[in-house]
């Protein structure tokens, strides 16, 4: 009687896979201009998406560089003895959020100050004998965002005379880089959905043209997956082909951009573009994956409606 064991063979035969691939490619060729329109839509979307991805990754890189530079300077009371300083160092190290502690004797501190002043270093001439700077610790936190919290803890320790970590500036910087990141992610998601919608719509048109074929396939006993597969292949191919052009364009133009900027004077330790590799691999992979996903999703969404024949 009604036997569940009489369902279709779910394991696809290799020959059938070949047929679906052939049908998918045939459909792409047969619907030449619509294929072209779809691929163009993916190309444009992925190009914009790729530019944003590269931009976002570089902003992220820049933010990380800036964050890495954030450090807390803990100035030590001039009355502290060597033992006092040693126990202070232990106390700082015992704060869990602290990543590293480095002792900067006052001579070293003066040298660093001079270097940072550049041309105006002459202002500090003759200070070597009467160095007004105290000894200090440079503290780095595990997470840059925890700087303020750690700073307030450090303030409470014995033999700490004062603390400097650029209050206010640091907080503002984190807020800014965070905002840039979020806007970038939002934009990329929005563009991704636009592309999916475009593909789904284009494949829908090609399916309408093949409505009769689907109807007959259902009549002679085709399973839904058998009907879906060629469209799946078609969508996948469109997505991947749509990703290839943006990948090539982005690799070439980013290559020139990196050459131009990282070799120039604007570049500094903080402001630098990410190197060509592995960035382009990552972006290429991301675009291929997104292109494939968009294509497959678009085709499956479109075909679903037509399977209820």
């Amino acid at each position, binding site marked *: *009687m009604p036997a569940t064991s009489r369902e279709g063979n779910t394991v696809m035969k290799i020959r059938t896979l070949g047929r679906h691939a052939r049908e998918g490619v045939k459909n792409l060729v047969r619907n030449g201009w619509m294929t072209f329109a779809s691929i163009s839509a993916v190309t444009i979307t992925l190009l914009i998406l790729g530019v944003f991805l590269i931009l976002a990754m570089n902003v992220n890189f820049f933010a990380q560089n800036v964050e890495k530079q954030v450090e807390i300077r803990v100035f030590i009371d001039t009355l502290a003895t060597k033992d006092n300083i040693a126990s202070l160092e232990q106390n700082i190290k015992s704060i869990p959020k602290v990543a590293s502690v480095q002792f900067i004797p006052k001579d070293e501190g003066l040298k660093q100050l001079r270097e940072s002043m550049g041309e105006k270093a002459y202002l500090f001439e003759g200070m070597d004998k009467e160095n007004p700077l105290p000894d200090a610790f440079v503290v780095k936190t595990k997470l840059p965002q925890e700087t303020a919290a750690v700073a307030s803890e450090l303030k409470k320790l014995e033999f700490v005379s004062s603390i400097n970590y650029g209050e206010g500036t640091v907080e503002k910087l984190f807020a800014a880089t965070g905002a840039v990141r979020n806007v970038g992610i939002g934009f990329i998601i929005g563009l991704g959905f636009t592309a999916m919608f475009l593909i789904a719509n284009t494949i829908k048109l090609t399916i309408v043209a093949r409505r009769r074929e689907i109807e007959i396939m259902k009549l002679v006993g085709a399973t*839904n997956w058998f009907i879906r597969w060629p469209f799946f292949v078609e969508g996948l191919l469109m997505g991947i082909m749509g990703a290839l052009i943006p990948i090539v364009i982005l690799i070439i133009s980013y290559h020139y951009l990196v050459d131009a900027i990282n070799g120039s004077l604007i570049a500094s330790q903080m402001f630098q573009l990410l190197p060509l590799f592995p960035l382009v691999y990552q972006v290429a992979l991301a675009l291929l994956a997104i292109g494939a996903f968009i294509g497959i999703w678009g085709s499956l969404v479109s075909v679903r409606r037509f399977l209820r024949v």
Partner: protein
Amino acid sequence: MIEMFDVWKTYPNGTNALKGINIRIEKGEFVYVVGPSGAGKSTFIKLMYREEKPTKGQIFLGGFNVSRIKERQIPMVRRSIGVVFQDFKLLPTLSVFENVAFAMEVIEASPKQIKPRVMDVLGLVKLKHKAKMLPSELSGGEQQRVALARALVNNPGIIIADEPTGNLDPETSWEIMKLFEEINQRGTTVVMATHNREIVNTMRKRVVAIEAGQIARDEQRGEYGYED
């Protein structure tokens, strides 16, 4: 082979197309389904290959409870039935051979099986010599013979036809009917909705008359019984 128990069909718009159908069709029978236009003949046919679902009642067909099966089992039911329509339903871009082979490809038969089997059925409908032509290059009768070949190619136990001669002239209609007769004599059950009075009255078979969604008459070697 085919059984219906108190089958009702109400379309979403409220039309009661079938009202309490009970019927039993044995393996190897040849049944005409006749009746006025709008009586429910097409609905009766559609329920069998699960194009439509009954609102109430049970339908058994070749080991399936067609009224109860899950969506994904529908293909299996259809593979045990061959369906033929008034408008042929051929794919215009495929050749005669490809149109028939299509039904075998869909159930994932191997090319080795497909070729000889398709030529066999094309031989049965006497169209071997036109295997490479497109449907548009054939007459209506020839197109219906291709459709019949496609319905037969997977060796179904049942052939269901909804007015297969509706678009054909009398002479061509007879050719098609002779093919159905031949197929039936090879053991295939045939259920055919038809308006063709001359055929029903000449090629005598079991006649089931549906009127206003109910079986009004069911006779062996019956007559058409309506003045068209």
